Each structure stands twice: as structure tokens, then as C-alpha cells.
């Protein structure tokens, strides 16, 4: 997330007021610090594993209704209890993990293709193509995020596919601006001039020379967009848009269980906690990846010009 963007700047020793707080108020010993630092990795690994293998391993049908045991709290049969139709909350949570990651990764991929690739193509083509493409990007950027996704989901219909496309279009402008900024920055570099002097064409330079050099910027931007994509998907399904009513996405689970929150808070808390843990873990991992890949803070260029 761009809001966690830490400015990697050396602390100025000369500052008389010592405002740098590299050393926090509480000092945590090395091993404990490492253990704490590994938590996000563990959570993301667990989420990925659950998304891939969970539905098969659990062996519980997330749609099976046990009407005699509705809105039950956790028990031996139902580890996280049942929802208002007597469906196993844990089984639904597991399927929801897969759907969340699918929608998130799919949305990022679509945004990369629509914003990044088309952005590069438009920038390389230059002239009116670039002007028109970026005018359109500006239009989409000026739309309030949720509203755009809302309209797109309604226009494209229900289902995971349309939701993914809607998410992709919503987040595409971020990648489009990175594409334009990095393309024009790289164009002025010596290696591009060298390639030009060897007679390489515009497109050859773009694909074989520039693209590999700027892929890092896109990877880090993708790690920023991924958690936002996942949250937006859950907001959409929470509002009753997006996937079919029956699909156990986290947002839909939250919306449905919220009506019975007094009798069975666990059915609401489970997806809320899952969503929040996954989001923060992905954001923290993205932060670390960004510091590692791009110590010069070039990443945010173009994201919010």
C-alpha cells in the first residue's frame, strides 16, 4: 500500500533535535523480532495453502445445510459453528479464501494487462494514441473507486469473472501511469540510445530492453494493489454485488451473518478476521519487497503524480 511508503532516508546525524526514531521506544531482542517479522509470511503461506488444498482436504461441503443446527457456535462437528442456514462456517471460509485470492490476483493481472501493457503500447506508439489512451485513463481515475466497480459489476453481470474484470479496470490507471512514467524515463537512458544506434526499432526496444528493466516497478506496484483488490472485492460482495448470492466469498459471508450477529458473532468474526489478517500480511510483505527491490524509492513515481 502506498500509504505505508517509508522514505528510506539516512537519519541526519547533524540534527540537534534527533527526530529520527530508528530505535523505537521498546527494544525487542533479535530472535523475537525475527519471529514477529515472519508472521506475515506464515499467514500468506497458510492462506495460499488453504486456497489451493483446503477445499479438497477439509472434505466438508460448504453448501450443505444442516437446518436443525442453524447459527450454532463452535463445536466439535463444526469447528467455527454454522451460519443461518446451518452451513459449516469453516468450510465456507476455506472456499472464500480461494475466491478472495482468485479475485485479487485476477484483478491485479487484468489491471497489469489493461493498464501496464496497453500503457506501454500507447506510450511507445506516441502521438494521438497516447493522448487518447491517457485521457481515458484520467476519466477512469476521476471516478470514485467503489462507484466505478459498482457500475462495472452491474454492467458486466454477476460472477467471479466479471468481478475480476471490474477490479482490473478500477486499478488499471495506477499501472498505466507507472508505464508512462517508466517508459519516458528509460527512453532517456544510455542503454536505449545504444540499442537505437544498433538499429533496434521502437517495439523491439520496448519489449527486449525496457520491459525487463522496469518489471521491478510493476511487481512492487502489484503488491500494493493486491490487498486493495481483495478488500474491494469483499466490499462489493458485502453490498450484494459481484458473485452469485450463494457463493461463499468473505464479504457475502459477513453480510449474511451480520443479520444474526447477536445470536452468533463467530460467523461474522471469522471472515472479518480472515480478511483483515490476509490484507495486512500482504501489505506488509509488499512493503518489504519494495524496500528490497527498489531502495531508491523510484517505485512510487507515476502512481500518484
Amino acid at each position, binding site marked *: *500500500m502506498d*500509504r*505505508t*511508503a*517509508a*522514505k528510506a*532516508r539516512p537519519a*541526519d546525524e*547533524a*540534527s*540537534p*533535535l*534527533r*527526530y*529520527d*526514531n530508528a530505535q*523505537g*521506544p*521498546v527494544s525487542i531482542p533479535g530472535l523475537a523480532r525475527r519471529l514477529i517479522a515472519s508472521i506475515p509470511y506464515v499467514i500468506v503461506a497458510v492462506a495460499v495453502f488453504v486456497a489451493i488444498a483446503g477445499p479438497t482436504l477439509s472434505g466438508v461441503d460448504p453448501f450443505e445445510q444442516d437446518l436443525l443446527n442453524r447459527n450454532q457456535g463452535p463445536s466439535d462437528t463444526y469447528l467455527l459453528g454454522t451460519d443461518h442456514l446451518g452451513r459449516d462456517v469453516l468450510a465456507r471460509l476455506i472456499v472464500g479464501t480461494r475466491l478472495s485470492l482468485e479475485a485479487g490476483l485476477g484483478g491485479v493481472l487484468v489491471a497489469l494487462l489493461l493498464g501496464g501493457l496497453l500503457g506501454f503500447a500507447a506510450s511507445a506508439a506516441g502521438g494521438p494514441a497516447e493522448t487518447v489512451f491517457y*485521457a481515458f485513463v*484520467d*476519466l*477512469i481515475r*476521476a*471516478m*470514485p*473507486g*467503489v*462507484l466505478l466497480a*459498482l*457500475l*462495472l459489476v*452491474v*454492467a458486466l*453481470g454477476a460472477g467471479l469473472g466479471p468481478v475480476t474484470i471490474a477490479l482490473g479496470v478500477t486499478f488499471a490507471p495506477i499501472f498505466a501511469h507507472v508505464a508512462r512514467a517508466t517508459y519516458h524515463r528509460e527512453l532517456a537512458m544510455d542503454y536505449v540510445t545504444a540499442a537505437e544506434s544498433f538499429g533496434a526499432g521502437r517495439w523491439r526496444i520496448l519489449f527486449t530492453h525496457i520491459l525487463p528493466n522496469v518489471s521491478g516497478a510493476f511487481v512492487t506496484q502489484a503488491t500494493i494493489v493486491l*490487498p486493495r483488490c481483495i*478488500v474491494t472485492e*469483499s*466490499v462489493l460482495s*458485502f*453490498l*450484494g*454485488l459481484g458473485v452469485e448470492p450463494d457463493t461463499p466469498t468473505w464479504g457475502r459471508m*459477513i453480510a449474511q451473518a*451480520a443479520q444474526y*450477529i*447477536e445470536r452468533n*458473532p463467530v460467523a*461474522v*468474526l471469522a471472515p*472479518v478476521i480472515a*480478511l*483483515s*489478517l490476509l*490484507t*495486512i500480511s500482504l*501489505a506488509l510483505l509488499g512493503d518489504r519487497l519494495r524496500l528490497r527491490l527498489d531502495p531508491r524509492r523510484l517505485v512510487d513515481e507515476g502512481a*500518484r503524480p
Partner: protein
Amino acid sequence: MTSRFLMIAASALRALLLVLGITVLIFVLVRVVPGDVVDLLGIEGGLTEEAKQQMRQELGLDRSQAEQLLIWLGRVAQGELGLSIRFQRPVADLIVRALPTTLTLAFWSFVIGLTLAIGVAVAAVIWPRSPLPALVNAINVWSIAMPTFCAGILAILVFVLWLDWMPLLGNMVLPCVIIGIDVAGQIVKPLHEDLKETATAQFVRTAHAKGLGRAAIVWRHILPNSLSVVIALSGLVLTGLVGGTITMEVLFGLPGIGKLALDSVLGRDYPTIQAVAVLLAASVVAINAVTGIVARLLDPKLRT
């Protein structure tokens, strides 16, 4: 002076063009939807095929898309937003009725968020050895980890159901505080970073050397330097608040613009969706234009 005027005029023109483009885009998006309001009403009211055709004719839905677009643009230009098909009331009425709720919500959320962010960030720079810098991170992490609708549900569970401190429906305090904390989370960290950076400047050393206290240095010398950052972040946050109140309105039963947008989208109420969508998009464009202009007027580096 003339260059300033030109800059403002150019911004305004750009904003106007953007709004026009968005209007067309929204029109296209809304009309792509398969099935129209007449179909929906037909299913509910059991209308015959002839009755449906007649209704479409009355609503102008039988004309070509391009014609409908031109007619609608012409009406909007005259300040006429049309009639809501669903509620059988002028769209302008519905918007005027919903606007105060959303504006109140957005205003107080923004005030709470900005106050909290500036307060914590400034205090964290004045007392860097206290737990306050950790609080900066905590607020930031909270706003990433807790989407407002999740925070809303937790708040309902704790403050409404368990503690029984306040009612659920029509509650304005919880939504404002929840969105406020979210807003603070977006502002506090970049602001804190910027304040820390300014703290290393030479004029801060000068102020220190002449015997000024820490708090006075931060308030009088460092914070004013970060004004442009505060304005830029405020613009970002305000655009996020447009439409960002929708989940809170749904959760707490507040009849605001977000709820109106959602209801009209779900009910295929074209005139209302279009009007609300254009209103929201226009607010975003306006906020961006105004913050851009203010930032340029204030910052000598951006002045051209």
C-alpha cells in the same frame, strides 16, 4: 497575476471536460446492462407486453442509445435531472434529501481524521522517544487491515450489542469515528515522515539555537512547512470519502447518497444512477481541481 488566472482557468476547463467525458462514460456503462427497469417492474407488477412497450415509450427507452444520450445531456445542461423511474419522484428531490446525511458524515469523518492525524504526527515528532511514533504506525496499520465495513461490524458488536451504549439505526457517531480513524491512517504516516524530514533542516537548528522549545519549533516552524503535504493528502482522502461512505450508510441505515446509489444500481433506475454517478464523479474532479490549484498557489516551487 495573469499566469495565476490562466492556471485556474485551465484547471477549470480540464475539470469541465473530465466531467463531460465521465457523463458519457457513465451513460454507456449504465445502458450496457442487459434488462431494463421496465423488465424488473414487469416481473414485480405482472405487466403485459403491450403495457411494457407503452411504458418504454413514455420513458423514452425505445429510442436509440445516442438519441437518449443527447436528450439526457440537454436536460442536465438545463439543470433538469429527470424523474426517478423507481420512486416516481424527481431525482433532484431524492438527491437533495440524501445529500445532508452524506455531507455530515463526510465532513465529521474528515475533521476527526485530520485532527487525529495532525495531533498524533506532531506529538510523535515532539516526543520521539515516547510510544507516540508507534501509535503512528498502529493507526496506519489499522486503516490497512480493517476495511471500514469490518470495523463497522466490530463497532456494532461491541458498542451497540455488548455495551449497549448507542442505537444502531441512524447512529452517526460510530460511522464518523470509524471513517475518521481510516482517514487518519492514510494521512498520519506520510505526514509524520515529512515532519521528520523537515526536522533535519537548517532553520530548525537555528530555531533550536535561539532557544525555542521543542513544541514551539514543531508547531511554528516544522508543521507550516508540511502544509502542502497536508493539502495533497487531504485531497486524496476527500476523493476517497466520495462514495467511500456507502458501506457505513448501508450498515447503519443512513439514508445518504451511497445508499441511494446502491439502491438505484440494484433497481436499474437509470435517471437516478446517472445523476448520482455524475454528481459523485464531479465532486471528485472538483476536489482534485481545487486541491491542485491551492497547492500551486501555496507552493512557490510549483508556481509557474
